[in-house]
């Protein structure tokens, strides 16, 4: 790792002020992606601003039809939260399958979304559930937030403070984890909103990061059942191809994980 300066922020305002002082600052939350990347010298921020202990950024609030998870809440706490398990069990289940137990103690939802790894789990839930990303400056709809591989609508120095999820009528997540990294080779999140709309998002599959899956949404809108996807074909164009799986393989995985997600949702 190249030299860097570490700062622990005491508040959101302090984090923003510290960020502005560095020549090439980065926010550090759980560090489960940023630190490995810095160790490989693929990132070399002049300053890292630790936001993980800011009290206003930790915690879960469920009120009415909204689950709000503050940005520095670790995956473990989301997975264990009785309130999340009750309101959106698929979200708690997704959090319980990220990485491994040691990673889940440190990694946070805000860090995962700001990084926007094309195979990360949370982006699928955020896009399928139509969540809102709250920052120190504004609220950003999920549709407008993800901008392709490792890029988001966040401006330099803008910090995610919380994510609000509308409680759906039904939701489920299924992923085929890469056996080594536990990232999603493909993961699919299906949601039926209380208004009856169906939204489906896939992670790990597309060359441009998390994506909505129109053919599955249409099939499930007509008939919410795993068997409704039997005749659906997912186009392989634009999907990722690497040593772990071809684009055709991932196209099929989108369908199969979609079916498993519907089964999990009930």
């Amino acid at each position, binding site marked *: 790792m190249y*030299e860097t300066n*570490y700062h622990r922020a005491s508040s959101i305002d302090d984090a923003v002020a510290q960020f502005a002082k560095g020549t090439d600052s980065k926010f550090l939350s759980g560090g489960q992606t940023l630190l490995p990347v810095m160790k490989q010298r693929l990132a070399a921020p002049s300053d890292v601003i*630790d936001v993980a202990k800011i009290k206003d950024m930790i915690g879960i609030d469920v009120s009415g039809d909204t689950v709000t998870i503050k940005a520095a809440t670790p995956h473990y706490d989301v997975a264990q939260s009785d309130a999340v398990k009750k309101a959106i069990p698929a979200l708690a289940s997704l959090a319980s399958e990220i990485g491994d*137990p*040691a990673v889940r*103690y*440190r990694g946070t939802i805000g860090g995962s979304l700001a990084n926007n790894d094309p195979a990360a789990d949370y982006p699928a839930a955020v896009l399928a559930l139509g969540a809102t990303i709250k920052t120190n400056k504004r609220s950003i709809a999920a549709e407008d937030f993800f901008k392709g591989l490792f890029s988001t609508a966040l401006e330099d120095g803008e910090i995610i403070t919380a994510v609000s999820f509308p409680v759906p009528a039904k939701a489920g997540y299924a992923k085929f984890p890469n056996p080594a990294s536990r990232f999603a080779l493909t993961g699919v999140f299906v949601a039926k909103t209380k208004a009856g709309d169906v939204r489906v998002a896939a992670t790990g599959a597309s060359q441009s990061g998390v994506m909505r899956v129109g053919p599955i949404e249409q099939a499930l809108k007509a008939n919410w059942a795993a068997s409704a996807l039997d005749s659906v074909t997912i186009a392989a164009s634009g999907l990722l191809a690497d040593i772990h799986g071809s684009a055709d393989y991932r196209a099929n995985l989108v369908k199969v994980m979609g079916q498993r997600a519907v089964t999990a949702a009930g």
Partner: protein
Amino acid sequence: MSTVKLTVNGKAVSVDVEDRTLLVHLLRENLNLTGTHVGCDTSQCGACVVHVDGRAVKSCTMLAGQAAGSNVTTIEGLAKGDELHPMQAAFRDNHGLQCGYCTPGMIMSAVDIVHRHHSQGSGGKLDEETVRHELEGNICRCTGYHNIVKAVLDAAGRMKVAQAAE
């Protein structure tokens, strides 16, 4: 350089380190606690697992500064004098190690698994499948995991008895 103050195995320590120092390097190089190992350096193998404020984390994926003010327990802090922690004793009795390189991290993760399941009210009744699943962040290249899993299940019973006796 920064001064990092934290508690390690019950003792308050204050160490001057570069800001880029990882927790594992503070433990090994500044405090000479070399029981915590660096295996892969890519956050996958779990040889570096220690407890930070009661949670088993990878000390190669945490800056020393992030641990400032925290309570850290390493493999050296588990035994009570000459009396091994039940997890350590179970690893010995069940031949849960061969070369021993992964063992400190395995034991720190395993203690966390048992604590977690005790606190969730499953009465320490871990099953083999759960243990195998929860050890996915710890890699062992010798044993094939079989005796490690046996050791963790054995220790879960011993820790429950010890907890009941307290």
